[in-house]
């Protein structure tokens, strides 16, 4: 039930309170409020290291998700004890995202929220390796972002829009 947020970088100013609010709302929209989740705001160095270690791509990226449970898309984990009420950790490449936003003119805080939504869906088994997988994930992202938009008045769209 906790959202553990860490800001481990100094490259980009990050507003913690609104990011936490967004993540809590997105988690609730997924029906997973009972589960802990970790969110680390990371710089390019950390993202490069993790991407290289776990995906053999030693380059910065926007988001990496490390699920605690292996579940099928759309299913919630079935924990057997209190310690297993954990979705896993999301590493947000805030420096990478900020650089992208500067290039595209998009709003940084909005893209952070959208990327966090994408990372959360990955923790719950959603993938986008094939078109059917992408369609399923896109739908879920749309659904939870619409809930966030309803609460905040924003107009956020899924990160995977136009991927296939």
């Amino acid at each position, binding site marked *: 039930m906790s959202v553990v947020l*860490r800001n*481990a*970088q*100094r490259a980009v100013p990050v507003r*913690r*309170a609104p990011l936490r609010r967004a993540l809590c709302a997105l988690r609730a929209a997924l029906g997973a409020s009972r589960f802990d989740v970790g969110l680390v705001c990371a710089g390019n160095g950390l993202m490069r290291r993790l991407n290289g270690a776990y995906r053999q791509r030693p380059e910065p990226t926007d988001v990496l998700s490390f699920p605690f449970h292996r579940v099928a898309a759309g299913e919630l984990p079935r924990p057997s004890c209190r310690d297993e009420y954990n979705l896993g950790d999301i590493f947000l490449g805030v420096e990478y995202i900020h650089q992208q936003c500067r290039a595209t003119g998009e709003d940084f805080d909005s893209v952070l929220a959208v990327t966090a939504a994408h990372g959360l869906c990955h923790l719950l088994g959603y993938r986008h390796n094939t078109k059917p997988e992408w369609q399923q994930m896109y739908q879920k992202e749309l659904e939870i972002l619409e809930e966030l938009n309803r609460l905040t008045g924003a107009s956020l769209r899924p990160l995977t829009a136009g991927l296939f």
Partner: protein
Amino acid sequence: MLLARALRAAAAALRPPLRHPPRRLLSSSSSSSSPRALLPPPGAAPPLARSLWQLGGGGWRTALLRPRRGSAGGVSCGCGGLHTEGDKAFAQFLSDEIKEEKKIQKHKSLPKVSGGWELEVHGTEAKLVRKVAGEKITVTFNINNSIPPSVEDETQEEQKPDEQEPDLTSTPNFVVEVIKDDTKQTLVLDCHYPEDEVGHEGEEESDIFTIREVSFQPTGESDWKDTNYTLNTDSLDWALYDHLMDFLADRGVDNTFADELIELSTALEHQEYIKFLEDLKSFVKCQ
């Protein structure tokens, strides 16, 4: 000096008194501070002392003025301190150490902290002050005991002998005070660096600094008021904690500031360490 004084006392006991002896030579009592009181009466001379004087050929005064080299190598410099071979070796060691420390000194002058902070240093305590709108923000820290002990881990065990040791980093606790012009209360936030994670190479996965305690204290009073409520963040609601962190960030106390404070504190600590070594060398050597 004590040794030299004892040697003179022994010599004085053996020689005959002169008509106008130098005051120092007749200080036969090591604890006496008044040579005049120690002048023996004229004519009173032990026979043994005369024969020794005659044997010495009259050169005894010069011999007594010249320091005798005992096993401790005493030196009569008049400073009132003990001088030993150990002291000499210690002073030489300190000279070498000071030279080496100055060679590796990263900052000859204290680095600036970005964001318009003014620095005041009083010995080991430093204060950064910033004014923004109607607020005064003060960040205070002390470099004493600010270097965490190094953690023994597998990485260190695998380190080759010729590799350089990691640099020592000063990560002091720091206190942020926020004073608003229109209130008589100061918001005080006690901040710490995580103990196990700073100093390692590469980015870590933790907050660069944390808020540990928060309290209101009367503005302008130096004494801490124990009866004022102190919020401990150990069991604090996470959302409230994030608001406090955002509050600090808005006033310039963010991760960038925390990193730059480490640079400043490390430089100040090194400076004070070198100064201490220099003072210690002067104290031991007695120039």
